[in-house]
């Protein structure tokens, strides 16, 4: 309960603050042409990324799941790898290579490339896991291959893809770095600029609330879709994976060309660009002390943030894993809504809050860490919850009947067994927070730098060469959760009939959500 209240404080304060500004100025801010423009821009971005993701993910998933195209394991890994590249690092890589890039199409391109794995991976798994029996029955009932796809395969695979799409949409909506790099006036950039200009804070607050509402809609739709996917499980026996289609020579070549093409765009271009910039940076010189300072800054702020997040997350996770009352679900749901909080909004609301109530806390390390905790609480809850739920309650009750008190029983049994998951959750928060950009820009103490802000500053002044080492460091950080996910996914698409998560697309989507931290 406390945890939720704490999470909600910044948002509530933002609301109060906006209302304080008075109805007229709210309406004025709302009805300005720029508000409409911003909304249209943001929605167009979201729509474009959704279409882009579909375009990239659907053929990729089909090739990987349903055909005998050579090199599937390799391409499967390659399809997950873009998750290891934070989207604004990818944006940086593209603009460093093609300095002319800007505008809405550039953002759509980069965001689609960066987030299509959210769709491709669960879709591949879903296509693999659809019981072959279902499609066969449809054929025996007189449906041709196309009608079977329309009436069986697409309805069954859709929820998995939809959840991934909504996730991509959500990240697009709250993405700051990419949007700013390509100078597109979407919500995040407009809010940030309004805050920077500092005379227009009401407008920034109003826009923030608008953004949160949009994001909330996406989160709610996403959880609905996911809930439905979860309900769609049937049968207890072993489902046969769908058969793979034997591709002819020409189709194989076309398929390989497609997969390689996607790989070049999503991985090849960033890798090439970064390598070239790195070579540049060796010529321009590289300040080791500055880099060390940035790393130290990233680590300290993120570590404190992870600690706070863990402290807030554990009680919720324990309750959610063991009891499923309506209250608990509500609390968990509220924390999940944290997914809908863009970093810009949390940053802005904490700026207001500290300035109004605790000026001493304005732009301190603690406030920054608190912002991280608020932003990444859902990840911490998710990780701890699933690992706690995996411990059979019977173990704990056995410990109780053997004479341990409730707390000792929890710590010696459940806590002891679940701690790797809990620790992984904390680590995830730590790594994610290290890459957070907008809130960090707004809340960091003067002179305090992290890897993300260093990269940002250098991109802003188009010092692409000297930014390369920072970009590389960010990718290294982001690879850790992506690697973890790779291990989760390993084997699942090829051998779906094994393990407890068999045939469970929602789990797949959860894993991707989980690594959503990569953004």
């Amino acid at each position, binding site marked *: 309960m406390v945890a939720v209240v704490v999470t909600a404080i910044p948002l509530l304060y933002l609301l109060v603050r906006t209302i304080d500004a008075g109805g007229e100025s709210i309406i004025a801010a709302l009805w300005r042409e720029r508000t409409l423009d911003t909304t249209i821009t943001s929605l167009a971005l979201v729509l474009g990324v959704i279409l882009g993701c579909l375009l990239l993910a659907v053929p990729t998933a089909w090739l990987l799941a349903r055909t005998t195209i050579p090199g599937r394991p390799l391409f499967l890994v390659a399809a997950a790898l873009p998750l290891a590249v934070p989207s604004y690092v990818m944006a940086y890589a593209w603009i460093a290579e093609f300095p002319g890039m800007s505008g809405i199409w550039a953002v759509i391109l980069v965001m689609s490339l960066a987030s299509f794995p959210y769709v491709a991976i669960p879709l591949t798994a879903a296509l693999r896991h659809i*019981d072959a*029996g*279902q499609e*066969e*029955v*449809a*054929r*025996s*009932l*007189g*449906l*041709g291959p196309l009608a079977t796809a329309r*009436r*069986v395969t697409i*309805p*069954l695979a859709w929820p998995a893809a939809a959840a991934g799409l909504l996730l991509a949409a959500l990240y697009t909506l709250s993405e700051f770095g990419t949007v700013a790099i390509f100078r597109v006036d979407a919500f995040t950039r407009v809010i940030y600029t309004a805050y920077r200009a500092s005379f227009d804070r009401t407008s920034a607050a109003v826009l923030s609330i608008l953004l949160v509402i949009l994001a909330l809609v996406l989160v709610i739709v996403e959880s609905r879709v996911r809930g439905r996917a979860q*309900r*769609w*499980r*049937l*049968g*207890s*026996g072993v*489902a046969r994976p769908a058969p793979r289609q034997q591709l002819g020579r020409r189709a194989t070549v076309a398929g390989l060309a497609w997969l390689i093409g996607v790989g070049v765009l999503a991985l090849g271009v960033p890798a090439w660009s970064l390598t070239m910039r790195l070579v540049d940076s060796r010529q321009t010189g590289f300040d080791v002390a500055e880099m060390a300072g940035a790393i130290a800054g990233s680590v300290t702020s993120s570590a404190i943030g992870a600690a706070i997040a863990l402290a807030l997350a554990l009680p919720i996770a324990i309750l959610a894993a063991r009891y499923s009352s309506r209250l608990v679900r509500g609390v968990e749901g509220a924390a999940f809504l944290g997914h809908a909080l863009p970093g810009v909004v949390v940053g802005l609301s904490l700026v207001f809050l500290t300035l109004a109530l605790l000026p001493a806390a304005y732009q301190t390390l603690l406030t920054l860490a608190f912002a991280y905790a608020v932003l990444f609480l859902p990840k911490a809850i998710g990780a701890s919850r699933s690992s706690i739920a995996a411990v059979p309650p019977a173990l704990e009750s056995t410990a109780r009947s053997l004479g341990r008190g409730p707390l000792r029983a929890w710590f010696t049994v459940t806590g002891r067994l679940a701690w790797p998951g809990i620790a992984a959750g904390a680590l995830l928060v730590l790594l994610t927070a290290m890459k957070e950009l907008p809130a960090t820009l707004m809340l960091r103490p003067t002179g305090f730098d992290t890897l993300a802000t260093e990269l940002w500053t250098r991109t802003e002044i188009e010092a692409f060469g000297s930014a390369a080492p920072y970009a590389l460091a960010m990718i290294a950080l982001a690879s850790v959760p992506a690697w973890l996910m790779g291990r989760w996914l390993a084997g699942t698409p090829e051998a779906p009939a094994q393990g407890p998560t068999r045939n469970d697309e929602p789990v797949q989507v959860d894993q991707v959500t989980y690594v959503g931290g990569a953004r």
Partner: protein
Amino acid sequence: MTTPAVAISDLVVGYGGPAVVRGVSLEVPHGEFLAVLGASGSGKTTLLRSIAGYLKPTAGSIVVDGQEVAGPSVWVPPEKRHVGVVPQEGALFPQLDVAGNIAFGLPRRERRTSTRIAELLEMVGLVGLEKVRPQELSGGQQQRVALARALAPEPKLLLLDEPFSSLDAALRVEVRTEVHALLRSLGTTTILVTHDQEEALSLAGRVAVMAQGRIEQVDAPWRIYEAPSTLGIARFVGDLVELPVSEVSGGSAHTSLGWVPVAEPIPGQEPVATTAGLVVLRPEQLVLVSDRTIGSDPATASGAPGTVEAIRYHGHDSLTTVRLTDGAMVAVRSAGGAGVSPGDLVRVVVTGSARALADPVV
């Protein structure tokens, strides 16, 4: 009855590696309920999948109702074969309700009119569940929906792929009895694939026993049980008493149980060499006689003496394992309890005649 519902000749099917179905020929007349019985890996499901059109045979042909659907130069896709399938798990479409599932294979026009759906729901005893989602149904109800869905387009042939194996024991008997009665009243030609010998023997008009990709025997259920053509079939179907033969004379063989009459070999079966084979008996052909009631004079007593080793009591019958004096073990089935305890001295008497079969190992 001039054209059979299904005629399969010299069918060979594989998955790229060694063939799984190796030269199967089979004819099923209209209206018959045929069971294909085999252990897992015998190729029975592969056979069914090739009839359904899910697999392309490498050689041989399949003719459904006079139309060749698979052959050297012919390939009819599953949707054009009019062959209904009830898969193992039902494979209901989770995105559709019961009515939607049943109507799935109907033409668009008929999908809207509910008369056919209502008819089918009544047929399988699920009236009132039209709007229910498959995942809210019990396992037996799911199977019945799957059956109704397969029957809806009035297929020429119905294939059942172990449809009852996912149900628990009590429900299994109930559902399969109902399904059997329904299919008989409709007169639908049906091929049931199963590894459950009790299911095959109790439901089918004829049973085809498959092993290692070949059909070993096609016969009436009682013939499969009483006159198996190979030792493999005899062992697979029901409990078996196997006795090595030490001497053959006339129509009898000398075994641990003494001289046992041996039945004529069934037509087509390879004659068994005199002492190289085994004779087999069903446990119910043996009778247990308590040693006390006969008296202890071995000269007048009939049957082979032995000691009771173990008793498996099933209620309606019991299976008693007896160790004969020469060390051979035999199983004796008695109706109800056997009235003996482990350690008792008993005699085992043979009734009826045994079958001589070649032992493939020897």
